[in-house]
């Protein structure tokens, strides 16, 4: 027996069966000697029972079809698409302005158009385009079959290794082929339990065939990119740069 006096919260927790065994005993003993409290607690218990049995049948009713979750998920899909369309149109216009403007400014500012720096940009573009996509972020799902592996080998040529990030808490969602100014690239996407997504872009490199890891940062999208044996890799995501670095190291060690 502890010497802690019984308080009102104990009585409530007693009613709800939320006390540990020892405290439960103590409260039961207290109620044995305190008639008023015992009467109150028993009325509270009756109140709970009455509420549960009065409302119970509602939970046993068949669910109306408008509350069918699968239908609600389905219904939200076209709505999302229609929101994307005007944004995509705007993106095309902005891209056109950017491209022509960029061409005129070319002589003054040279954006990275080659090597690992260009790869990092392509990776963050892929991230922007697909990581926010709830409908179909990947073309080929990682379902344990060979489809993704075959896609990977076909895209980058030769046997492909698909890194496993489960140690870092990220699952492989799948992948798709993305076009880049330097040939097709393979995009892999991973996510964790909180819905954070990472994108990995791999493609053949003409320039920077072997290059140590470098960081990149575009607004909120951070990346780490490197190249080895003629293949370039860029891992991007909207998470802390340091944490992303450790994941990139893990990836590099597997490749």
């Amino acid at each position, binding site marked *: 027996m502890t010497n802690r006096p019984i308080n*009102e*919260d104990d*009585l*409530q*927790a007693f*009613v*709800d069966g*939320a006390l540990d065994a020892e405290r439960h005993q103590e409260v039961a003993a207290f109620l044995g000697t305190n008639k008023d409290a015992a009467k*109150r607690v028993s*009325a*509270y218990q*009756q*109140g*709970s*029972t*009455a*509420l*549960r*049995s*009065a*409302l*119970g049948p*509602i*939970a*046993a*009713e068949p*669910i*109306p079809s*408008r*509350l069918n*979750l*699968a239908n*609600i*998920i389905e219904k*939200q899909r076209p709505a999302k698409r229609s929101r994307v369309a005007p944004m995509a149109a705007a993106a095309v216009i902005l891209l056109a302005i950017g491209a022509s403007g960029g061409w005129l400014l070319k002589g003054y500012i040279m954006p990275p158009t080659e090597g690992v720096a260009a790869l990092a940009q392509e990776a963050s573009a892929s991230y922007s385009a697909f990581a926010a996509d*709830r409908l179909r972020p990947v073309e080929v799902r990682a379902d344990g079959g060979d489809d993704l592996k075959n896609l990977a080998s076909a895209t980058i040529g030769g046997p492909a290794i698909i890194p496993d990030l489960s140690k870092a808490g990220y699952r492989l969602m799948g992948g798709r082929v993305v076009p880049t100014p330097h040939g097709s690239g393979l995009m892999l996407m991973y996510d964790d339990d*909180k*819905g954070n997504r990472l994108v990995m872009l791999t493609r053949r490199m003409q320039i920077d065939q072997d290059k140590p890891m470098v960081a990149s940062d575009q607004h909120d999208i951070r990346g780490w990119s490197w190249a080895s044996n003629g293949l370039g890799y860029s891992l991007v995501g909207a998470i802390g740069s340091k944490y992303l670095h450790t994941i990139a190291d893990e990836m590099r060690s597997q490749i």
Partner: protein
Amino acid sequence: MDDLLTHVEPMIPALRRYARGLIRDREAADDIVQDCLERVVTNWTHRRDANARSWVFAILHNLAVNRIRQEARRAGRVTIDEMPEATTAVDASQDSTLFGQDVLAAIEGLPPDYRSILLLVAVEDLSYAEAATVLNVPVGTVMSRLSRAREQLRLLLETKPTSAKPVGPFIRRVK
């Protein structure tokens, strides 16, 4: 999206029950549940709360509370809190059992805050911590509110037979 189905679909009966406990009208309660589920689908991947149940219940609770406030404003009538006990209890039948419609009529006589806490803890079996998340108040507030809510419900149920007396000189319930 698959984990959304496995997590949320089993909650739907309980969500309907909670909504109906707060809003007696069946259609209106299901409207709120539908609204809640739509928000859950939209925000599922962005949720930060690890406990899916309290996250979903919190969305439902906030929608229901907004609805109750709107109704009260639109009707321009006195809020339930301001009503004297006797008038809120007149609908109770003279049958003195605690079961069935009586207890539902009784909780309708409680302020919405008290009704919510009773439903969450006593009916939906949420832990005090989960209820605190849903109501966005500290656990201490959950405990004191729960204690007051239970006491008021007890008084309403105990005084019920006397409240069936005629409320005015011209109205008399005849069974």
